[in-house]
């Protein structure tokens, strides 16, 4: 493309570049605006007095930053926040660790039933969550893990998806690297930690982000699992502002804004790795 363009006249080149630039930004900015508008409405609504929430005028007549304080007064918001981060943190840690290890076994080791077991893993990606929900719930009841952190963390900590994602990524790492390390007498444990994992870092970050966000937002499982006030996570805890006794949409919006800020920061910081870390598979060469 660049070669062709240098041959064109100065004006044409300027116009083509300029035109493309304007077009791209135009389309993107329009789309971004449609994405952003409801959020602006949400942020503005979080500063409104309750009665104004549904008025068409998006701006509050009187700004009420006190809504944000009120959230903390009405529900143990900090506790919910802590629970959400805590549960999502543990799940992410366990998931990354066990998935990376399993992925190593699938991507780097040769054993008898490897491809069959991997196909089984792949097949379970298709299982709808509702199929396993009731048995898992029953299992949690039998294990006396209902209404506990463990009941939120453990069932979510082992997934086929993480193993799949990391296995695909590890396949792209040149074999010569770990073979060289093994030549030098390294054990599999050492190869895994010192050669493969550092190179899998983008994949791990991607998995960590997906897992963290997925669990931080998770609604249904905590809803059925958790009974006690002090164990509730944010998505379930915020339902308080939407109950039939006092629907407080402005506070709900304030809570949501506070809820998503850490996610946005996380995303902005990691979005580069996020894209590098996904290797779904290649076309047969």
């Amino acid at each position, binding site marked *: 493309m660049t070669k062709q363009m240098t041959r064109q006249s100065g004006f044409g080149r300027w116009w083509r570049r300029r035109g493309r630039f304007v077009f*791209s*930004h135009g389309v*993107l900015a329009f*789309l*971004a605006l449609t*994405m*952003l508008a*409801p*959020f602006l409405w*949400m942020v503005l609504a979080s500063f409104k007095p309750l009665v104004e929430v549904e008025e068409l005028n998006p701006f509050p007549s009187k700004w009420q930053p006190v809504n944000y304080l009120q959230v903390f007064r009405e529900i143990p918001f900090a506790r919910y926040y802590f629970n959400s981060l805590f549960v999502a943190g543990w799940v992410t840690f366990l998931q990354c*660790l066990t998935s990376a*290890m399993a992925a190593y*076994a699938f991507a780097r080791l*040769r054993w*008898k039933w*490897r491809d069959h077991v991997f196909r089984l893993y792949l097949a*379970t*990606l*298709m*299982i*709808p969550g*509702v*199929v*396993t929900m*009731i*048995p898992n719930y*029953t299992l949690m009841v039998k294990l006396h893990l209902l209404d506990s952190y463990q009941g939120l963390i*453990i069932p979510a900590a*082992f997934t086929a998806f993480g*193993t799949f994602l990391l296995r*695909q990524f590890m396949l792209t790492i040149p074999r010569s690297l770990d*073979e060289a390390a093994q*030549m030098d007498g390294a054990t*599999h444990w050492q190869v*895994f930690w010192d050669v493969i994992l550092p190179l899998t870092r983008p994949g791990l970050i991607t998995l960590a982000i997906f897992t963290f966000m997925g669990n931080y937002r998770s*609604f*249904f499982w905590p809803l*059925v699992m958790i009974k006690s006030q002090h164990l509730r996570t944010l998505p379930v805890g*915020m*339902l308080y502002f*939407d109950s039939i006794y006092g629907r407080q949409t402005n506070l*709900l*919006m304030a*809570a*949501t804004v506070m809820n*998503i800020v850490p996610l*946005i920061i996380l*995303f902005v910081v990691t*979005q580069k790795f*996020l*894209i*590098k*870390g*996904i*290797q*779904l*598979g*290649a*076309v*047969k060469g």
Partner: protein
Amino acid sequence: MSWKTRRLRGHEGAAAMAFLLPNFLGFLVFTIGPVFFSLVASFSNWNLQRTIPFQWIGLENYAKLFHDPDFWLYFVNTGYLMLGLPVAIGGSLVLALLLNRDLRGIVAYRTLFYLPTFTSGVALLILWKALYNPDFGPVNVVINWFLDSLGVNRLVAILTGRELSAPQWLLSTRNLLGIGVEQVRIVAKQWGLGARDAIIIMGIWVAIGGNNMLLYLAGLSNIPQELLEAAQIDGAGRWATFRHVTWPQLAPTTFFIVVMSFIGGLQGGFEQARVMTGGGPAGTTTTLTYYIYTKAFEEFDIGYSCSIAWVLFIIIFVVTLINWKFGSRELNY
């Protein structure tokens, strides 16, 4: 291969077991086990009410399901809500293509497009409920302005003798295919825009810049630069390059996205039904997942709800196999 690596190979079986075990145990207990458990339960009349004695009833639940008009209606609802998937996936691809370059402010764009994914949840659903308010929701305010101020309605009135009015959105059982409320058949009166379409539009808005876009961006960044350059040297235009290089190279990504979206779509609709519509109006936004929940936790018929879940699974399985057969001939997983 030196004697040392050969010695290691001998131990690979044992090492593999050690590496696999933590994940595999969890996988066995929380995925494989429950799947078979629910299969077994679907052959029983397991009910949480004590007066109903436990019994193995073979395929009776499945037979009942085929004659359950609600099941078919909710099945159609679920399928209808998935009509937005192609648009959402296509949109994600277009967005990814637009974003896959060194533009200034690219991080801001990516973050903005990802915003709906962060927020998905109660607040987002309540927000859309307000947007869809038929009388003063911004969506209809814009539509009414379009119809009245821009004179569209005057034109329509001249052409057809009738005026258009803005849709009732979440309050309406209408839909673009004209599916009836109580039976699965086409009813002219039901033609229009209603609750299901409202949920589809919202779904597209949420999904378009979400994980699918990220997957496409990843896929695009993995296309070897040589291939694109080779195409340009051959004089291929932008469309030809996309058609013959980019699109085939994205095949694994597209395949993955299609399969995962399909699975997500078939088991979707729970939160929308719970928060926005309560499954209504007249059950038109009740999806299979919501029905499974209702059967298990409101009517306590666990056996029956397991059989619905398994039918869902079988559908997904078959569709994925078909996908696999046609879509993945050149793929290498």
